[in-house]
């Protein structure tokens, strides 16, 4: 019976995937017809950087699995990668440190994702473009006009709302960040926020937030895809674009705008140190014996249990390592306001202190319980005197 149900289930799934495949193929044809020619030859570039065909094939399987698609989609992922540079991209910078761009573009050991990002057709990128002043402004206007409704607007950085947005002005005309974001985002096919600053405000918006910084969605009221992280993983960005290329739609998002395929589970759920957590094996001090054995970093303030991200699965720098693997706990950078909610970053949550001193919730709790006990003792004695001889 169960078996019968199972094969029935399989059939439905297979049918759905076939339909999805058809949709994908049609859409890719459409892409090849309507979007501008690729400016870069991906395979040429890969060869130039010393990556083999085999590396590329391997990468497609990893990416297909990461996107939660069955293996039959591998050729489509490969095709989407070849067409990656067809999508025009306008990349805006607001209140941030440019660390996300740096992390994406400056890996010393580039993998397919990094090279893919190099092929991206940047119509405008303040850090990378040669133009400046009025010329830059013109480039932006031209890109927005030429590719209206087709380009993807990538935003790095939060938007300050204080002083009518004048804490952040850009370009020769002194437009506020909010004005620029509104102009560009309104013409874009999709807005992708790179990094936690544009997604949620992050460090520029950390308490006490003097410039009243907020994430893009809150600042200008458009819906955004949030590739959260400080910095995020390049894979989560390329995967989202690939998905968009393959299906003409953005991937499923969670209620914070993060793609579910990348941010659907917690760090703690993927963590290779997790067996040590369950076995009560914790690092107690930096560099102690337990640290050498690779035990769990929970007591060193790891915020993996509160953080949705796939770092442990896709890792960084070509899959070499990721923070918890390298021996430092997760700091929770893909979550809104992590700078405040995850503090102290190198101690467990209940070690947060109040009033500038050493008082934690537990200290306060113990003190209050002590006061209550003392009050009870006094009340008991007083009651004994007051109600002496009652019947």
């Amino acid at each position: 019976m169960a078996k019968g149900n199972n094969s029935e289930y399989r059939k439905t799934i297979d049918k759905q995937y076939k339909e999805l495949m058809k949709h994908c193929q049609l859409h890719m044809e459409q892409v090849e017809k309507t979007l501008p020619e690729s400016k870069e030859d991906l395979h040429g570039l890969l060869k130039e950087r010393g990556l083999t065909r085999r590396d590329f094939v391997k990468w497609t399987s990893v990416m297909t699995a990461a996107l939660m698609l069955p293996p039959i989609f591998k050729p489509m992922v490969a095709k989407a990668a070849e067409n990656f540079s067809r999508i025009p991209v306008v990349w805006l910078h607001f209140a941030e440190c440019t660390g996300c761009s740096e992390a994406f573009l400056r890996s010393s050991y580039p993998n397919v994702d990094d090279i893919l990002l190099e092929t991206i057709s940047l119509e405008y990128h303040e850090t990378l473009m040669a133009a400046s002043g009025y010329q830059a402004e013109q480039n932006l206007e031209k890109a927005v006009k030429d590719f209206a409704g087709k380009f993807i607007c990538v935003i790095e950085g939060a938007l300050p709302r204080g002083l009518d947005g004048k804490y952040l002005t850009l370009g020769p005309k002194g437009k506020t960040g909010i004005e620029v974001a509104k102009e560009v985002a309104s013409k874009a096919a999709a807005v992708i926020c790179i990094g936690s600053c544009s997604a949620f405000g992050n460090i520029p918006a950390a308490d006490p937030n003097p410039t009243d910084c907020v994430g893009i969605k809150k600042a200008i009221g458009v819906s955004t895809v949030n590739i959260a992280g400080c910095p995020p993983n390049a894979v989560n960005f390329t995967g989202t674009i690939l998905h968009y290329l393959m299906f003409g739609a953005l991937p499923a998002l969670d209620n914070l705008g993060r793609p579910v395929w990348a941010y659907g589970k917690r760090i703690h759920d993927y963590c290779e140190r997790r067996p040590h957590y369950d076995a009560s094996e914790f690092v107690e001090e930096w560099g102690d014996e337990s640290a050498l054995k690779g035990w769990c970093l929970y007591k060193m303030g790891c915020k993996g249990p509160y953080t949705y991200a796939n770092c442990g699965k896709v890792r960084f720098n070509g899959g070499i390592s990721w923070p918890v693997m390298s021996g430092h706990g997760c700091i929770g950078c893909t979550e809104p306001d992590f700078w405040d909610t995850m503090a102290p970053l190198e101690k467990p949550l209940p070690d947060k202190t109040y009033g500038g001193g050493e008082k934690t919730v537990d200290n306060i709790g113990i003190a209050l319980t002590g006061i209550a006990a003392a009050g009870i003792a006094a009340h008991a004695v007083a009651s004994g005197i007051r109600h002496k001889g009652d019947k």
Partner: protein
Amino acid sequence: MEKKFTSEKEWSVAMRINHWAMAISIFVLIVTGFYIAEPFTVSSGETVDKFLMGNIRYAHILFGVFLVFLFIWRVYLAFFSRFHADWKDFFAWADMKMTIDQIKFYLLIKKEGPEYKTLYGPMQSLAYIGLFFMVFVIVITGLILMGAGYHEGFTAVAYFILRPVEKMMGGLAVVRYVHHVFTWFFILFIVVHIYMAFWYDAILKKGTVSSMISGNIFKKAKE
């Protein structure tokens, strides 16, 4: 001259079972909860043979789910108990004069407390409203923390409904912290609650402590 007492049924069986099941669950949850928050390391032995945190989390979540259902049951009893649906008694504090008299009695200014007809005294009703709120918050935050790690059945449904609450609260870290802070509220409640039960027993001599076990409370018989 001798005083007569009559024994009256105060608590139904359901109420008593519910009370002690809740008391035991809360006790276990506090102990296991603190271990989860501030665990100690088990150094000796092989990793494969150890599962302390795993077991403690299991116990915490098991009793947590008990508490969820006990709470639902208790709320049900408050409205639909065939013995005595007591939801109105939770508003005994609305009678301000009586509440003030009761405070004076507690502060030993007055020797006699006010005569209330409700099941709970005015201060007691306030304390239990507060307690119900505490149980509600800890159950909701607990279900969110549970849903973050398990994605099936009852938990998945609860988490689907509660995910917006998680977002509103500011993420799992805040949820976890609130859960921890409320643990202390429970400890404070229990200290005062047990003292007051014994105090009532000593001052009013109605057998308050045993009433939660036997169900009966003593009342002074009218002449």
